[in-house]
């Protein structure tokens, strides 16, 4: 099952702010499970890539210290009609992607 992403973006004066909400537990691997005395296994998104019309714009790497159900906002130089794509992968290899057309 792929990771769910909600993404919005609007271009104003040549600059577009792209916001994404991702559904993911972001388990850091440090938090203890009190019942077993062992930490919960790490499960977090570690690579996020954003492209504008197919060209790479932002390459982001995350640790487990990004909050659960992460929110991310970035800005790119783009105009209405440009295509923004977001691809991400977590540390177990699970991936998700979303593509929007700027308004």
């Amino acid at each position: 099952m792929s990771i769910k992403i909600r993404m919005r973006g609007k271009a104003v004066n040549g600059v577009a702010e792209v916001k994404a909400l991702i559904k993911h537990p972001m388990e850091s691997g440090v938090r203890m499970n009190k019942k077993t005395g062992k930490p919960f296994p790490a499960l977090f998104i570690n690579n996020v890539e954003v492209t504008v019309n197919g060209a790479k714009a932002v390459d982001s790497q995350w640790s487990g210290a990004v909050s659960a159900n992460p929110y991310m906002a970035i800005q790119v130089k783009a105009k209405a009609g440009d295509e923004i794509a977001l691809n991400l992968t977590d540390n177990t290899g699970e991936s998700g992607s979303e593509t929007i057309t700027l308004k």
Partner: protein
Amino acid sequence: MMKRRVFLRNTLATGAAVVAANAGLLTPTTVLANWNKDAFSAKSTDNALSSLYGSASTAESGDIQLKAPAIAENGAVTPVTVDASGMSGVESIAILASKNPIPLVCTYAFSGAAIGYASTRIKMGETMNVIAVVKAGGKLYKAQQEVKVTIGGCGG
């Protein structure tokens, strides 16, 4: 005789590989080669910066706008925004939380159409500094702000 030795050596080597694979299974971390494992396992901000940029020396800069709350009621969702769009030649932004077990939270590398701006929400275990490190024109700049984390929900 030689064949037997080769056989022995190969079995030993395979054994070691299996052990390594098992260790890998217990802590699943490396899936993508470009994820900077050293920087993301460093226990101090200086070590993390050294692994990331090869240097931990940063200059304070007023051009970096770091937005974080003065008091975070819930340390598990601390909104942090780094705006370095006023600087020229921004190559990357790193966000660190100084007292977290693993200080480095996230990095953003910019290319093409990107602007030096990043906003996210991070986890913080206690009151500490949020540090934004911006690499622009080959140099490292830093801005930091203390965020008070009130634990227990009493508001302190």
